[in-house]
């Protein structure tokens, strides 16, 4: 095997090597961080949507994002149910900004209420099934344990107020907050929903069970979901939107990507981190070439070609990538955990995301290498003489 000159030159000075690795790791960490936050903000917005137990989703045409409090007539669900291939259709009622009183501090905070008939399998969460009977009791609710701290203690047995009426917590489940849910989510039965929100003062919008926020349609196994969606769009009135669940999730994500500055902000920050990484790696490569310029020129005099030297530089670049990526990745994992705990955001490391950053890191190093390589090409063997 050929002498690994690239490796030796890169690693023979411990402190220099450690500094180099630290630099690359932190650039990698920066990219992981910013991309992670961006993804977290997006992932959080669709957590609820993903656990909805429906193959087809029906919403008011105006409701292009969960933020918008528009409902559609329940009649439409009955109409959807009549289609062949449709097994069942369930209504889901939501209320944003319902005021929940923190049992300890007595401060009132808005959160989102999700309501449905406990007999309908609306949400794919085991804790909901477990509390099916309990939810049928009046003035009861189960609370998302990942709600923000301002909501206060949320264990079963706690009694407090929602929308200025008494309420009892009979259990918890696990989901997570997003921008539309404000401080948290709670789940109750549709009958309880009426109890709290159908008879309010003049300045509040009242609700009844004839207007539905989100309609979930389950289709029979083997039925063609796309064909059904197309058929429904054709035959049902167009005051509603009919989409597959995947499309519904995408619609929500699209809104957050396009219509908020989140995408812009984090893409900008990630790009900056990428640029910093390039500079860091270039600095290291450049220093190596400068310091060993005479030796490299000597190699050229002995008879090594330019291509060999280019190879050395590129090899160093790649070695640096790998050595820096691993610690960067590991620290990112730790940071993701810490951030999830501190903010309630869903910071997930998936193989796909790790790969994305790895590719970016490799490109970073290749680009730096390509720039540094020009300097090594300039090493003139003739100048080694007589100096």
């Amino acid at each position, binding site marked *: 095997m050929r002498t690994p000159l690239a490796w030796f030159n890169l690693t023979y000075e411990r402190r220099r090597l450690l500094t180099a690795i630290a630099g690359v790791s932190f650039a990698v960490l920066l990219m992981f961080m910013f991309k992670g936050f961006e993804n977290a903000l997006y992932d959080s917005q669709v957590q609820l949507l993903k656990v909805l137990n429906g193959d087809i989703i029906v919403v008011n045409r105006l409701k292009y994002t969960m933020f918008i409090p528009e409902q559609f007539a329940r009649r439409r669900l009955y109409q959807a149910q009549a289609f062949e291939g449709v097994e069942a259709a369930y209504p889901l009622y939501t209320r944003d900004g319902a005021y929940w009183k923190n049992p300890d501090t007595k401060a009132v905070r808005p959160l989102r209420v999700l309501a449905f008939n406990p007999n309908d399998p609306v949400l794919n969460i085991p804790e909901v099934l477990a509390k099916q009977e309990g939810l049928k009791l009046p003035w009861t609710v189960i609370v998302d344990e990942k709600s923000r701290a301002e909501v206060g203690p949320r264990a079963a047995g706690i009694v407090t107020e929602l929308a200025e009426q008494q309420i009892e917590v009979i259990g918890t489940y696990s989901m997570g907050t997003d921008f539309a849910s404000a401080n948290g989510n709670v789940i109750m039965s549709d009958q309880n929903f009426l109890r709290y929100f159908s008879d309010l003062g*003049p300045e509040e919008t009242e609700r009844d069970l004839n207007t539905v926020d989100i309609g979930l349609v389950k289709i029979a196994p083997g039925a063609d979901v796309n064909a059904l969606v197309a058929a429904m769009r054709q035959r049902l009135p167009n005051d509603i939107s009919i989409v597959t669940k995947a499309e519904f999730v995408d619609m929500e994500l699209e809104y957050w990507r396009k219509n908020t500055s989140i995408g812009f902000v984090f893409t900008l920050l990630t790009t900056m981190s990428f640029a910093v990484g390039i500079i860091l790696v270039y600095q290291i490569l450049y220093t190596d070439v400068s310091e060993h310029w005479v030796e490299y020129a000597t190699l050229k005099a002995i008879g090594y070609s330019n291509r060999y030297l280019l190879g050395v530089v590129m090899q160093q670049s790649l070695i640096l990538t790998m050595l820096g990526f691993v610690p960067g990745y590991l620290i990112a994992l730790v940071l993701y955990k810490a951030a999830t705990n501190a903010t309630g955001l869903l910071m997930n490391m998936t193989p796909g995301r790790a790969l994305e950053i790895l590719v970016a890191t490799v490109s970073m190093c290749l680009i730096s290498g390509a720039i540094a390589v020009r300097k090594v090409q300039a090493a003139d063997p003739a100048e080694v003489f007589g100096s």
Partner: protein
Amino acid sequence: MRTSLAWLNLTHEKTRLLVAIAGVAFAVILVFMNLGFLGSLSDTAAITYSTINAEVYLISPQALEITTTKPFPIERLYQAGGIDGVKRVMPLYVSYLQWRNVETRQSRALFVYGINPSDPVFLLPDLQKPEVQAALGQVDTVLMDRLSRPEFGPQATGTTTEADGRKATVGGQYTLGGGFAADGTLIMSDQNFRRYFDPFPLNQINLGLIKLNDGVDPLQVVEALRQTLPQDVLVMTQEQITARDRDYWIGATSTGFIFGMGVAVSCVVGVVIVYQILYTDISEHLKQYATLKAMGYRSGFLFNTVLQEAVILAVLGYIPGFIISLGLYELTLRATSGGLPVVMNIGRALFVLTLTVLMCSLSGLASVQKVINTDPADVF
């Protein structure tokens, strides 16, 4: 003046210097961007309140920030009117309205301010124009914020569309901005407000605005009001309510945490970059430094030289970093149609400069060990 060894050492190799400056500059940019985004959140809260012509504010204790308020009785405002120093009290109504884009026929939520047209609620030059004043008084006519996102459609005077099922005509424009919670805003008269948000009794208000006489201390009035009014309203100065909104947003969106961490890690990167440069420079010039020691220079001199290099690097990197950040701020403003009002201010500029110098000095201190320990005897 003594030859600046620090300067000469740094500038000796042009390419190396450029790379170093680039490194520091980018770290500076990262910090500026993170702080900028954080600041824009704070500023959006401030922008709204600073445009309102009042020094003292009343809100319900259950209100979180300006778009999530709970109405309270207007009596409280009238009670406040009797306090010494108060020039005038004005009610402010707020809510969201589904505004239809006439071109795309898509509806989106616009944030609405309802005011009594004869109250000078907003310090907006457009509202002083007589034709705009007149439009405000017309039935089903509203004023539209120019900074509303393009998705809301045309803003030209005369545009007629539907809002929450009711006809609405644009009677004029102003420039404000919706901040974080709203993609656009409208201003309308309280009478129109009652129509669109029917049933909405005008004796329940969302915010109470109190204008003071010239020279009166807002804090004193706030104190007096807190004594007088019952606990079902909060009394605050403009500064206090701005801070309250800002803290809410930073907390609610975790952006404080996110960007704070961004700043921290960027600083670490900056330290690493500079350390690398200084360390390499020192290693390369070890013989020369040792020679100086042999000649009789003290360690303190070498220490100073390295530190000087660090500071020079800091400043040289800060300047392009600052300039490019200004450019990126502008880019952000354009790309988000004014949604993110990222602006540079002196305080932040100075803070980042200090941070940069500190960052570089830290690296300098870390790398200086080697110089102090050079043995002049090694030269021979």
